[in-house]
């Protein structure tokens, strides 16, 4: 097959990617090796000094820990919940269509809108959540969900799970509905219990879809900006930032106002997620499924 033919077919994609991703990515790397004044004015190259300074930042360990918790909590809970919900949606019951449509709403609403909605719901004085909790006597006093250090992360994770469920559920559902009915018939004939069927028949067949769901979720959740940004907006310091919001704050909001340092963190972020995904794929031996 001629290489030139390949270029023709791949051409549009390559052009798009080269123009819109590669060019800014190169600019990002170059920025990470440069020095800028607080105004953004370029002041020359400094080699790897930004990366060294990055490691010296006091807030970095906290931010890294937050990111790990953020990604792990959301992805694990979302995937497990999706398995259950997809199982439900795979069955035939009255109103199934409506439920499927309902599930699309958190995905259809932009992250910013959903985040602002949850800020409204979590409000200490006027939020419906606190009102419900105190009225139902589930809690003695209202909780400052977004201001209390102990609850902020949990509050944000809940929103993250909420918005990740639709997409993940549909990916798993697709995998589930591809399983032919005969397989279940065979298991039933063999006398397997429902749980046993699920474990030995369903799960393995749904694994490829699960794989796609996990990889994409990890990438999207790691790179997610609006949720943490909106919900954590009123908190000083960096105690609840993830690596992405920390990068933004370094560039524009903290006293560092250091674009070069932020770019270094940006590069590190890409490498981290790349490493994470590659490791994961290796672990589940992706290659063997290749056509």
């Amino acid at each position, binding site marked *: 097959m001629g290489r030139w033919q390949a270029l023709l077919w791949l051409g549009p994609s390559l052009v798009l990617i080269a123009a819109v991703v590669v060019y800014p990515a190169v600019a990002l790397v170059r*920025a990470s090796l440069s020095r*800028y*004044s*607080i*105004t*953004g*004015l*370029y*002041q020359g190259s400094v080699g790897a000094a930004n990366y060294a300074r990055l490691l010296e930042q006091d807030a970095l360990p906290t931010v890294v820990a937050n990111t790990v918790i953020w990604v792990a909590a959301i992805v694990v809970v979302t995937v497990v919940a999706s398995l259950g919900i997809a199982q439900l949606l795979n069955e035939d019951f009255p109103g199934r269509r409506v439920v499927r449509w309902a599930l699309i709403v958190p995905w259809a609403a932009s992250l910013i809108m959903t985040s602002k909605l949850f800020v409204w719901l979590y409000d*200490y*004085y*006027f939020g419906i959540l606190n009102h419900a909790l105190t009225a139902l006597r589930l809690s003695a006093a209202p909780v*400052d969900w*977004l*201001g*209390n250090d102990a609850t902020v992360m949990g509050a944000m994770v809940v929103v993250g799970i909420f918005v990740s469920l639709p997409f993940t559920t549909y990916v798993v559902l697709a995998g589930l509905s591809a399983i032919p009915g005969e397989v279940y018939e065979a298991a039933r004939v063999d006398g397997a219990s429902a749980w046993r069927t699920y474990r030995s028949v369903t799960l393995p067949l749904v694994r490829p879809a699960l794989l796609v769901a996990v990889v994409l979720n990890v990438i999207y959740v790691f790179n997610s900006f609006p949720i943490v940004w909106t919900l954590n*907006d*009123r*908190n*000083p*310091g*960096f105690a609840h930032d993830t690596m992405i919001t920390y990068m*933004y704050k370094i*560039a*524009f*909001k*903290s*006293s560092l*106002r250091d*674009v070069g340092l932020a770019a270094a963190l940006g590069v590190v972020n890409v490498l981290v997620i790349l490493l994470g995904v590659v490791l994961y794929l290796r672990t589940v031996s992706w290659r063997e499924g290749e056509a």
Partner: protein
Amino acid sequence: MTRALTALAVLGAAATVLFGACDRGAGGGKSITVVIAEYSKDHTKAFWQGLSEQYTKQAGVKVDLRIVDWNSIDQQVSTMIQNNQPPDVLNLNSFSSYAKDHLLYPADEVLSPNTRDDFIGAFVRGGEYQGKLYGFPILSSARAFFYNKDLFARAGLASPPKTWDEFVQAARKIQGLGGGVIGYALPLGPEEAQAEWAIWMWNNGGDWKSGDAWAINSDKNVQTLRFLADLANRHRVTQINPGKTNRTDGAFQLFKDGKVGMVIGFSPLAAQLDADKKVNYGVAEMPTAAGQAVTLGVEDYLMAFKKSGNQGAVKRFLDLYYQPENITRWIAAEGFLPVTKSGLSQMSSNAKLKPYLDALPNAKLAPTTDPAWDRVKLDVQQSIGLAVQPGGNPKQVLDQLQKSAVAAAGTR
């Protein structure tokens, strides 16, 4: 199916070409880029669009007008400068870093003498860097002490407090009314903590600097911060987590709901209260522990970036804005305060603005002329709230701020 796809393809290609071509900003010919912060959805764009059209008619130069909301304007401007594409005219709340980087025209190169003479003295001083005026005042605001007259009546308080002791007593009485009522709404969240902090700091006789050197952790300042922490944690007369409350969606909102006895506000808040007609409020001087009440004056700036060939065009644009009928019209529409002598005399007939206009001559400004202030301000925003948390350490926070300020003063 195929036909649908073909149609889609044609549509996609056509749309891209069409919109890409048609929506180009200012095409060929001379043009200047003007970046203005979005003070309000309703007034800012309307005014500046009108002004730009007037300017283009007069000068024949197109205007690429960008209205950017406050939350993202810093990012936008930084992006433009990183790409070596600074705007020609910029409206922002700081200027000295840009002056320090030699990016700006001084006033004598782009403002007519009439305009320069019309500025109120205090604001001129607030816009100078190394003796030259780089940050041209665009509008100003002054803070005032707001109190809820109905809550005061219920608590048996005849008049707003004048000293800090009276203030604490008043706050306790109001908090004691119960039913979720709050004595004083203290916003020390990252949005504008430095403003709230500055007012309390000055009213105890402290300041950011002592002479030319930073003095953030002076004894008086530590005392002030401890006072605020006590309000939150000992007397418990504030809203929940003041270190994590911003003015606008936190403290002001609660005051507008009628739940708060006292708050430090400004003229846009008064305008909103008047429109809502829900709260019977009064405006007074700040309670002080240092004899004479001090309030914070804030000025925002217009600045002109040095680019080859744009001096004439920029000068005409600025002169157009600074014509008394234009500048005063916009400031009045947005609910802010004047920065020119002509504007001051024109607006003094407005009774609603009287408390602020009276306070204006005695208002103190932040040390915006020092480029290190840009970093210090951000530092204060990100850390001072931590001092009023339960278990917070005011002295430690101020020491850290002082250390960073001194370091910032020494850096690029």
